């Protein structure tokens, strides 16, 4: 294999994310492709966390199970991962660590660091040398990172880095480094959540209300970091109920509004989502999934909230659910979510999960010029005196959306059933007509539904259908099956609702066997496919232990099926 998986293990608070991010950035600048898997505990210090980084000159789409370079910052690290070490693996550990492995660098951390706070820099230097990374890239990054803390901090860090690098060089090569990449500089290292935030900004998102909840928080935090430059009003609300109701209110007033949360917080937004449906307000909700029920495993990953997203909200109203499978899709589909929300005046969800939220990828800056422009509200209705927010529309169901205060048109919206002018009614004929008007928008969302992405043999013996963050592992599983001479393909759904059976039923019917691969216990997407298309799903590979899919996991699951 041409790619390498580094695993850095250590206690929370020990700075392994710092080491990991610096190496990540350096690899991206060196032109490598990367994939990051962060496993952390729900605590601030102590415990055992890992930062896993897979890189190589060719695209790497997902994590894999085997580890090639294990960096042990904690005592437990080696024990936890020794079974996973590949044949060619090297281990980096302290010189006092009790490890048994033929190819190990036993680093005199204390001596090289001088002071304890520099031990991470030592690890960085040793690791950089072990994977044949140019030390200049790291020096540059240290300068950027610690520059604000003053020259002395930078100098000390660089001195330690050089010392560690030099120490490692003396030990010689124990590891066959991958070929240097061709790609040049200029690419970003972005996480899934950062890409979502950038996608929102690209669509003109200018109002974000949220309540902190892992793994969603980094979406608003990313926007906050650029809020002033981009002109975004961001407010941390008192709870998720306030967050969603604020977003609906802002949307009514003409803002391009978003909120982001995770399972439990989303559960609290369910009533507000129904409100958005009734008021026909554009609303984008990022739902970053983690294992439930209840608090569950708050820092791990799962795809267990699809059903909740599908049916959140009492009563019936249209919605769309997008489920990106790469950082690039996180950007593009979030942008699309805003466009669809505005066009169909409906809530649109972006479903992601902890793995994808925290997964870094190397990507060129997103192409903004090629993006469609999201339509906006009507700033000046032609005849404001007769304006009606919910004017009948027998075709699309969409009424021109004016905003309050910008013209003499009065904009009235009501959570009760209402007449076209937005005022409360108990006329039951109007009720049926209004409910039909709202429902009609689902036809539009259906017509706009994105087809799934096909990958692999055209008439596959085995077709892996997946959605959201499972894409990478499923695609690589297909590569491996095909490498073994099997006929295989994958179908990735970047939109999970509405589903157009015409997009996938022919492919399903052509395939020898259809296997749904998804990160939950119940096979929620499988049930949805069955409901929407009548296609009976009999085979599934499911995962709900809090970890992301890997190709190895999928292949083992497929073996267990037959």
């Amino acid at each position, binding site marked *: 294999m041409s790619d390498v998986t580094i695993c850095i293990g250590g206690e929370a608070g020990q700075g392994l994310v710092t080491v990991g991010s610096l190496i990540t950035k350096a690899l991206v*600048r060196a032109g490598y492709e990367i994939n990051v898997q962060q496993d952390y505990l729900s605590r601030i210090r102590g415990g055992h966390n890992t930062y896993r980084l897979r890189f190589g000159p060719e695209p790497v789409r997902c994590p894999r199970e085997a580890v090639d370079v294990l960096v042990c910052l904690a005592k437990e690290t080696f024990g936890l991962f020794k079974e996973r070490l590949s044949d060619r693996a090297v281990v980096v550990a302290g010189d006092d660590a009790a490890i048994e492995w033929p190819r190990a660098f036993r680093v005199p951390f204390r001596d090289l660091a001088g002071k304890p706070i520099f031990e991470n820099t030592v690890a960085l230097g040793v690791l950089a040398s072990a994977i044949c990374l140019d030390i200049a890239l790291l020096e540059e990054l240290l300068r950027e990172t610690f520059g604000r803390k003053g020259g002395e901090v930078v100098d000390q860090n660089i001195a330690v880095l050089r010392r560690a690098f030099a120490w490692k060089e003396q030990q010689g090569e124990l590891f066959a480094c991958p070929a240097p990449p061709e790609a040049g*500089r*200029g*690419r*970003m*290292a*972005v996480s899934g959540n950062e890409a979502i935030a*950038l996608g929102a900004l*690209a669509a*003109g998102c*200018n*109002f974000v209300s949220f309540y902190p909840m892992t793994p969603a928080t980094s979406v608003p935090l990313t926007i906050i970091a*650029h*809020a*002033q430059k*981009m*002109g*975004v*009003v*961001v*407010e941390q609300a*008192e*709870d998720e*109920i*306030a*967050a969603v*109701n*604020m977003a*609906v*209110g*802002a949307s*009514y*007033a*003409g*803002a391009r*509004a978003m909120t982001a949360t995770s399972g439990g917080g989303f559960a609290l937004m369910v009533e*507000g989502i129904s*409100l958005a449906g009734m*008021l026909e307000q554009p609303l984008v909700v990022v739902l970053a999934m983690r294992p439930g029920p209840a608090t569950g495993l708050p820092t791990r990953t799962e795809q267990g909230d699809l059903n909740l997203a599908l049916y959140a909200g009492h009563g019936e109203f249209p919605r769309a659910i997008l489920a990106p499978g790469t950082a690039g899709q996180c950007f593009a589909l979030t942008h699309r979510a805003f466009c669809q929300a505005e066009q169909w005046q409906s809530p649109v969800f972006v479903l992601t999960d902890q793995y994808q939220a925290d997964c870094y990828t190397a990507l060129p*800056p*997103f192409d*903004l*010029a090629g993006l469609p422009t999201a339509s*906006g*509200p009507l*700033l000046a209705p032609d005849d404001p005196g007769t304006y009606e927010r919910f004017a009948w529309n027998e075709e699309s169901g969409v009424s021109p959306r004016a*905003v*309050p*205060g*910008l*013209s003499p*048109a*009065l*904009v*009235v*919206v*009501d*959570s009760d059933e209402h007449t076209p002018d937005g*005022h*409360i009614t108990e006329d039951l004929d109007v009720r049926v007509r209004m409910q039909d008007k709202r429902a009609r928008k689902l036809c539009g969302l259906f017509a706009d539904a994105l087809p799934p992405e096909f990958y692999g043999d055209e008439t596959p013996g085995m077709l892996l259908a997946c959605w959201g963050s499972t894409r990478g592992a499923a695609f690589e599983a297909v590569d491996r099956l095909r490498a073994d001479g099997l006929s295989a393909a994958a179908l990735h759904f970047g939109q999970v609702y509405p589903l157009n059976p015409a997009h996938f039923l022919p492919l399903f019917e052509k395939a020898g066997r259809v296997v749904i691969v998804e990160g939950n216990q119940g096979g929620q997407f499988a049930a949805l496919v069955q409901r929407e298309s009548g296609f009976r799903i009999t085979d599934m590979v499911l995962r709900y232990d809090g970890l992301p899919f890997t190709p190895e996991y999928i292949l083992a699951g497929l073996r267990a099926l037959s």
Partner: protein
Amino acid sequence: MVGIEDYGEFETAWCPGCGNFSILKAMKKALTALGLAPHQVCLVSGIGQAAKAPHYLRCNAFNGLHGRALPPAQAIKLANPGLTVIAESGDGCSYGEGGNHFLAALRRNVDITLVAHDNQIYGLTKGQASPTTLQGMKTKAQPFGAPSAPFNPVAVAVTMKAGFVARGFAGEIDHLADLIAEAVRFPGFSLVDVFQPCVSFNKLNTYAWYKERVRKLEAAHDPTDWNAAMTAAMQDGETLPIGVIWKNAKRKAFEELLPTFTGTPLAGRVPDHAALREVMESYV
């Protein structure tokens, strides 16, 4: 010139004799006195009898969910600072289901006004105890008397040194109209809690009951004196002061503390792709 007739006259779903009618009248008077045209005003309400008020005058209106008037009201103001935003809802809506938003709004101090129709009962759901129902009052749902102590929104708001805190009475329309107008003018969060007789379900706190107890604050009352304000706010029992109880002119409105807030509407802004390109550079 704006006249009260610009705000229209509508049929209501309220019971004859209800205090809501007077509050509606006071609201229209206040808006007229403020010289606001209907499209410059946005009324935001929750669900309840009081919460139907925005349907009964011409203006922009957001009639949201029970208990959730304040979050959209604040967001609407932040999204379009040019609008005069008034949240209007019942005591159950504002202090019961919406209690957490009330606390947050007091802390946040966004420049909106909350007019709470405080009938000390859940009207629309037919007479259960509300947060302001007096302890011991019997209802169908509390046949042994409401067991909890009543919530005093005015006292809590003063304690939290909110922007502007007033109490009105539906039986004093002109006084109430003045209070609402002053509250709207105040640059920060303003609370106007209004005693509102509910003739259908509250047989304790009737017009007569309120009339006997309500006293306009003396001219000498200094609403910027916190101790005086707290004393007035804590009065219950036989004397219930109405008027401007507290005013915190020293507090900055939320908007002033938000550097990303430009004072212009968010609607119709074009995404700044040039700036976003610079942002993306920081990830390289």
